């Protein structure tokens, strides 16, 4: 299982753990659920091509919630991330030659999604294009993402 690599197809789901601080009324995620922590270079997500929803939930329950369940996960598809990025002015294109989503970073075509293999978190991936957002675009992007209504309690 650990050797598997996510494909990041349009309909691939990249789940995002919602920190307990960011669960609003009725467990609705607050906009900050899609903000990077200080020092993070990408938005941490987990590919459901590698782990099941339950496995991802277990990983974050162990890290942040003393193993307590349920935790809240949002489950947008790659296409959702791409669309929301486009809405705030960042274009993510599909490069059919090497099969990657790419964005323009200082004139260089850079992969928009990467697999960041971690011990005990083999499905860990990054949404890379968020690092070219300025603060306001990051704010706009996060608000658009929470409107997606893709959250689940696992």
């Amino acid at each position, binding site marked *: 299982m650990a050797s598997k690599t996510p494909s990041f197809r349009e309909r691939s789901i990249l789940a995002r753990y919602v920190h307990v601080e960011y669960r609003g009324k009725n467990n609705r995620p607050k906009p900050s659920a899609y903000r990077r922590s200080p020092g993070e270079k990408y938005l941490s997500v987990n590919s459901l091509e590698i782990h099941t929803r339950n496995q991802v939930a277990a990983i974050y329950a162990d890290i942040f919630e003393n193993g307590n369940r349920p935790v809240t996960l949002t489950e947008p598809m790659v296409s959702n991330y791409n669309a929301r990025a486009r809405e705030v002015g960042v274009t993510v294109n599909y490069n059919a030659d090497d099969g990657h989503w790419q964005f323009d970073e200082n004139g260089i075509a850079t992969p928009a999604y990467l697999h960041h293999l971690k011990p005990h978190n083999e499905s860990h991936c990054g949404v890379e294009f968020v690092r070219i957002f300025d603060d306001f675009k990051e*704010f706009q992007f996060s608000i658009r993402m929470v409107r997606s209504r893709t959250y689940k309690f696992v």
Partner: protein
Amino acid sequence: MTANLSLAGKAIVSDVSQFGRILPRPHSFENESDEVTSAVSTTRVIRWIAAPHGSETWDEPFYSAYADELCQQHVLAAFLGAVGWAPGARTTSEPLPKQTHGEESQSAIPDALWPNWEALRRSGLSEQAFNTIFVTAANRSSAGPSDLGPINANSLKCFLEFWGYIGACSAQPEISFSPRGLVQAEWYKNESNFLVVEFRDDGTLFFSLWDNGLPIEGIQTKKRKYELADMFRVRRVNPLLWGD
């Protein structure tokens, strides 16, 4: 009251009475002569224990929720102890002791609460909002698995100024803090109608108003933040009334 409780129940009653003396009750800010004895969350637990529930079996989901809550209160208790709120010695009607230069690096007190304490206690924010600010400040100043940054004092100051201007004619927003510690206030009606304002540490405001699914977004300078509030208030549908 505790006669029918299990040992676990009795232990919790003991905890409740212990923490009940230490924790502040934000509601009492409205009446400073009140003796402050307990937090809202603690009161809720006491009510549950005192209620005639007709069963001696321990309610497992409730126990979990309470354990979480108590854990947060331990953080609060540690914080309050650090600022000298010994049981029975102080109430929230008294201002915090002044912080002198050089204490900052050794203090367990979240930085954001020091300069904003007076404004916070007079803000008229709901108990829920106050608790959110207080617990988040305490949690983010303690070591833990979270990599969220401490609350930003300037951002909180900016929010309290804004709230002071609109508070009398606004619903209570949901308050949260961005990973970098900036205050976000959200007036939420439904997914198509909501307003989010983020208060930056330089005093500027990011706002995102969604009216029937259509966004109006922008950045407002520190000097013109009250004009933004006025702009919301004169709209056909005032977003500051969404929520609660």
